[in-house]
């Protein structure tokens, strides 16, 4: 509950599933063992169901082959691709967890420039638990990261950010190029470690790669359909692209963020560019129609859930892309089938996640009007919480940056701020107070620091008042 200066990253081992599509073997898991062993794996076996996939010992997993998919979904199994890693989205559907991490079986642990092994899963978790900033670009990238912050000129009202729905990681060694680029640059390797996580701004599309991807299933799961690819389909290697365009449009509509950047994994296997070219061929010229389509999609206001957004999207796909190729009519059908299957497999419904960091039954609320000088003990154990408060006053606006703080809803009259706030994993909370009755006045920061910290005084008249800082002891 109380944050320290650097909060330990929760493992989330009971809240996250790792979904791995495979057609050959899972030897790569050995390298990931130290990082993955505590997690539950969902393995989606593509190709010949009679083949046995060997899972290394010690992992807790469930495995689904084509027969299982057919059995579980019945006729709806038609929406799940065969002979293409797009089949992985079946794993998203049957998972019972809040978060998903998906990784390809030719991806290994990378090292950062200092030579340390990168715990990709931990970084994805950090990305998902911290807010995103899709409404305004921060030039120092992720402002919630240790050692960074929002830059001068970044509007304070936007500093709370938005919930992060997707964390898109990158790849060292073999980069995710398309077939033509692979043919032109067969020996190019990505050796540049870019030490940044950033939010892709609202209204901007990107090519989402499914090799190293994590997302909040409760926020965006139903939109993570990887389309109809592979066997019997005219196109391949566009599964993650399709999902990426859909989720981005829906995230933009619902006010969720998509991050890209760290973590890196080591991508070891370059697929055959000629085989890839055959698969991608249609995609390369279809995408010239698809991009303008996605860039101009408008979802109606009454699409308030992911499923509703996705079904609306499928209607528009049929209406506007059906004429590009018959494939898109089939795809639109499959999108509907997918949502039906999703809702069947997830009967409680996709309840959107409440707030950034989930409900907490042990949440305590601080009464900001606690008055030190009255000698009252107050409800809240101030001395157990490390708090630094910096306050600035104007006649009608007030900006408050507590390090560790919770407060009552009556202090947040601005319609733009949610009723209740919780500490972020960095122990920060952003508030914009617009009610003149709740002005807290700063004298100087040094004076704050000099005073013995136990309480806070609130005055209504906007004049300077004696101010105490709140610096307690760590629990």
């Amino acid at each position, binding site marked *: 509950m109380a944050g320290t200066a650097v909060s330990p990253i929760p493992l989330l081992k009971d809240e996250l599933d790792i979904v791995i599509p495979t057609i050959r073997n899972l030897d790569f898991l050995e390298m990931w063992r130290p990082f993955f062993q505590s997690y539950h794996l969902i393995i989606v076996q593509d190709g010949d169901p009679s083949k046995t996939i060997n899972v290394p010992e010690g992992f807790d997993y469930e495995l689904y082959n084509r027969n299982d998919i057919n059995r579980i979904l019945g006729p709806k199994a038609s929406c799940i691709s065969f002979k293409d890693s797009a089949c992985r989205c079946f794993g998203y559907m049957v998972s019972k967890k809040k978060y998903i991490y998906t990784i390809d079986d030719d991806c290994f642990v990378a090292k950062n420039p200092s030579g340390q092994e990168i715990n990709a899963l931990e970084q994805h978790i950090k990305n998902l638990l911290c807010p995103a900033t899709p409404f305004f670009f921060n030039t120092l990238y992720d402002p919630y990261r240790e050692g960074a912050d929002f830059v001068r000129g970044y509007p304070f009202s936007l500093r709370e950010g938005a919930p992060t729905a997707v964390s898109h990681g*990158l790849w060292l060694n073999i980069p995710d190029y*398309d077939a033509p680029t692979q043919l032109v640059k067969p020996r190019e390797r990505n050796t540049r470690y870019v030490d940044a996580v950033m939010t892709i701004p609202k209204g901007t599309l990107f090519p989402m790669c499914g090799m190293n991807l994590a997302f909040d299933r409760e926020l965006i799961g139903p939109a993570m359909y990887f389309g109809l690819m592979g066997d019997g389909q005219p196109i391949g290697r566009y599964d993650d692209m399709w999902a990426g365009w859909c989720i981005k449009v829906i995230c933009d509509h619902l006010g969720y963020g998509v991050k890209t950047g760290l973590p890196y994994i080591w991508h070891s296997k370059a697929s055959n560019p000629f085989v890839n070219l055959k698969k991608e061929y249609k995609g390369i010229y279809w995408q010239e129609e698809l991009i303008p389509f996605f860039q101009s999609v408008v979802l109606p206001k009454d699409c308030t859930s992911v499923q509703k957004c996705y079904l609306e999207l499928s209607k528009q796909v049929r209406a506007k892309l059906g004429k590009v190729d018959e494939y898109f009519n089939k795809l639109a059908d499959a999108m509907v089938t997918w949502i039906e299957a999703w809702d069947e497999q997830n009967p409680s419904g996709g309840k959107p996640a409440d707030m950034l960091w989930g409900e907490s039954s042990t949440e305590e609320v601080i009464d900001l009007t606690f008055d030190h000088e009255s000698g009252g003990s107050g409800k809240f154990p101030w001395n157990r919480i490390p708090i630094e408060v910096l306050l600035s006053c*104007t006649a009608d606006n007030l900006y408050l940056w507590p390090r560790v703080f919770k407060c009552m809803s009556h202090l947040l009259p601005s319609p733009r701020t949610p009723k209740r706030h919780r500490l972020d994993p960095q122990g920060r909370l952003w508030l914009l107070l617009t009610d003149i009755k709740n002005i807290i006045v700063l004298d100087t920061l040094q004076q704050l620091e000099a005073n013995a910290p136990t309480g806070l005084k609130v005055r209504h008249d906007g004049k300077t008042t004696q101010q105490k800082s709140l610096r307690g002891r760590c629990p």
Partner: protein
Amino acid sequence: MSQANIEKSEIDIVIGALHSDLTAFMNEWKPVFSQFHLIVVKDPDLSAELLIPEGFNLDVYTKSDIDRVVGSATSILFSGYSCRYFGYLVSRKKYIISVDDDCVPARDNNGSLVDAVAQHITNLTTPATPFFFNTLYDPYCKGADFVRGYPFSLRSGVTCALSCGLWLNLADYDAPTQALKPEQRNSRYVDAVLTVPARSLMPVSGINIAFSRELLGPALIPALRLAGEGKLRWETVEDVWSGMCAKVICDHLGLGVKTGLPYVWRNERGNAIESLRKEWEGVKLMEEVVPFFQSVRLPESAITAEDCVVEMAKAVKEQLGQSDPMFARAAEVMVEWVKLWKKVGSS
């Protein structure tokens, strides 16, 4: 396109001098600056004589020059950090690079000195990609490319008109943030240049910036001056305002804006807490302008930077002018600026 292809004679480096003693600053930058022409503009409020070491090809402009060129009534525009805009006005070069006088060259992760000028020029002379985000960042740099799924029709990119660099050590935080985290220093060197997508807004910092004067010159304007504007970056918003206008104009004209490398090393000065008293004004103003900038649209008929500034000024006056006289004044300045640019700025 390598920097060698760009004539050094096409570049001006504009330095706004808010300190009189530029000796250390100039000497630190000598390896990078010595091959270029420099325009040094002295803050008209600075009384002491400028101290500039030998060995540079430069022109210095002081209050009397500014008064002579624009008239003493207008010279107020160029007070403080805004003095550099006078340099932009009188330059005749294609590209301008400008850094604050409290910054020195940074070192990259290998310990090599960062040639900020070369990097800015590379940014300005390679295309930008504002219409689709490339997850491997700048696709034109060595060792990178467009990723799978990036539409081919968008791979030629657009011209980059503005290059925003970053800062190691003292990052460009606002006063409240810096006061809250007095020990925080930026030590993370992020080895990337990326294009800021179209229609996304960002805070443009004037501390380390470069642009195509030819394409965008008139769009960088010292329009928004705080009543309590001071001589520390924490006490200004001129670059933030100017940058938001410039971004909207770039989006409208189909030009690109890049951010990321190069880094400069920014030195400490000033007291964030002192600035905190003054800066709230700028912070408050920013809140009001965001919805405006997110929704403003310029008419199709505006096809040059000058046209765009005139249209922006109209929109500012109509939509923001009522809420604060600061904005009405900014709109006036923007209109004045275009006239000034036509009179003085065009050769």
